């Protein structure tokens, strides 16, 4: 045994890992290799997510951010009573929080949908 010549080194790749990498998937190759198509796809996703985030922050800016201006411009609004509470207390002390959670939930829903759409485009079998 000792005098047998050493075998040349070979690279061992686990069959499973090699199989998982799969045959060249054109869309995925576009992504990882940074081809113009892949770049455009990612840019589209980023644009969609950013537009969603900006739209929802506009909702918050209009819903909450406008309140100080409103109270300053129309002091009478600050004196209104709803359910025995002054309107500003009800808006800021109570309703602001469920409003924020609702906007957050809407974002999570739509952001995940954007990602699913993106994944679907990448995974779409070649026709």
């Amino acid at each position, binding site marked *: 045994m000792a005098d047998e010549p050493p075998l040349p080194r070979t690279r061992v790749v686990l069959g499973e890992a090699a199989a998982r990498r799969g045959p060249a998937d054109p869309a995925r190759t576009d992504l990882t290799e940074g081809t113009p198509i892949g770049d455009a796809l990612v840019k589209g996703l980023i644009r969609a997510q950013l537009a969603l985030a900006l739209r929802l922050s506009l909702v918050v800016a209009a819903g909450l951010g406008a309140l100080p201006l409103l109270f300053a411009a129309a002091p009478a609004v600050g004196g209104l009573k709803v359910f025995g509470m002054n309107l500003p207390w009800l808006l800021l002390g109570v309703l602001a929080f469920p409003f924020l959670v609702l906007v957050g939930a809407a974002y999570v829903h739509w952001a995940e949908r954007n*990602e699913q759409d993106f994944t679907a485009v990448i995974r779409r079998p070649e026709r």
Partner: protein
Amino acid sequence: MNPYLVPGLVLVVLITVAIGAYGLRFARTTSDFLVASRSVSPAWNAAAISGEYLSAASFLGVAGLVLRYGVEVLWYPVGFAAGYLALLLFVAAPLRRSGAFTLPDFCEVRLRSTRLRRLATAFVLFIGCLYLLPQLQGAGLTFATVTGGSYVWGALLIGIVVTGNVAFGGMRAITFVQAFQYWLKLTALAVPIVFLIMQWQSDGRPPVTPPAGAVFPAATSVVIERDAELAGIGPVSAGETLHFAAGDPVPRVSTVDAKFGADWLQPGGDSGLFGTYSLILATFLGTMGLPHVLVRFYTNPDGASARRTTLVVLAMVGLFYLLPTLYGVLGRIYTPQLLMTGRTDAVVLLLPEAALGGGHLGRLLGALVTAGALAAFLSTSSGLLTSVAGVIFTDVLRPGRSGSVREFRLATLLAAVVPITMSMFVSDMDVSRVVGLAFAVAASSFCPLLVLGIWWRGLTDAGATAGILVGGGAAVLAVLVTVLGADLPSGLAEFVGQPAAWTVPLAFLVMVAVSLLTSRRVPADVSATMLRLHAPESLRS
């Protein structure tokens, strides 16, 4: 003294140490210490993030501010909660996908710049200290107020418990400790408020702002600590004790700044739109730049779960913030003497006994809220210490990949020494104001870095550095001027006291402008980085 108090406080410290020790059994590697091996479920993680976030400023400070200033300061709790919405919309999932562990890591991943990384490290340490200091201070003051003990021992005790817990358990244990402390804090405010509202009903719903001004609900003695002018009574000097019978009007004190009547009840007072919008900007955008908040996002398994975790945090934090406002409002009725002494931060601690009397119920609930306050100090300072220690460990000690647990413990000690020592010497700094300034610094340094870094390919290291230096530096200067108490002309004082409204846009502007000028420095691998930040993990093979 309240007989339930000491057992309650000892119990909280013991449970904290016990959960920390239990977590230690699972914390074996450095990765366990730093990021809980990235295996914490969203529900646990959300409770831990909320527990970590709700600090003394939220638990005590918000109620105290409401008691003092009324509707204007409701923007604090709204902003503290809305900060998580901004974090969710712009940062949560991409940040998790970046695979970075700290803010300096993010700089390296996105912009490949060591110089920027060092600058970010300096800012993390500054914000961490600025935020840790008032926590320890608040702990010391609470101990002094409630137990009559000394301020120094209170601050030192909390400092040692927190340092030990972080050094020996790391983040794995901290996750469990903080999840427990969120529920403790919520319970500690929610249970007493039920009894307080029932008491208010059975007292015949006394009005919060009676037309004739606030009156003492019971016979009260007030010890004068500083010379002042009392409306309707005249000048008083330090050391005098004033006695008031039930039903006597509460005199206004010249040295205490507070609002009364319609000013308290309705917005549009003298604080001005600039101050309000500055506060909104600082709190909405500052949360995402706080180092102890960000570090928790790395413990999520993937980007989608980071998003869901943030949504749960938003709901949990929002639920909590419904409560302090009620304490502030009821404090107006049952503890109006705080408006004379100016110690409005104590309203949550004193209200149960003041409203329900010195019986068993009042004392038991009093001990419960104090235990909640202790939990608030413990959890926030633990989280801060973990993140600051993490940054010292990876960026200052730089042990490389073979970093040992012992070095992490050394980093924890280093991170704890400065704020604990400082807290011994500054006992009269205003707690909630310093916390607000930490938000302003975070909003004008890390918020533009994160938002532009995640959404704009054109950001360069030179642009980021310039933006942080100019915007963050201006905010740091404003903080130092405010904390050191320099005299400023009144027009300038508002700009410096609430700097976010001009430092945040400034930071964004400088960052964009300098990046455009140095556009050839955009990292070559920006496309790959963007793909990694935004593509779902399921596409990675």
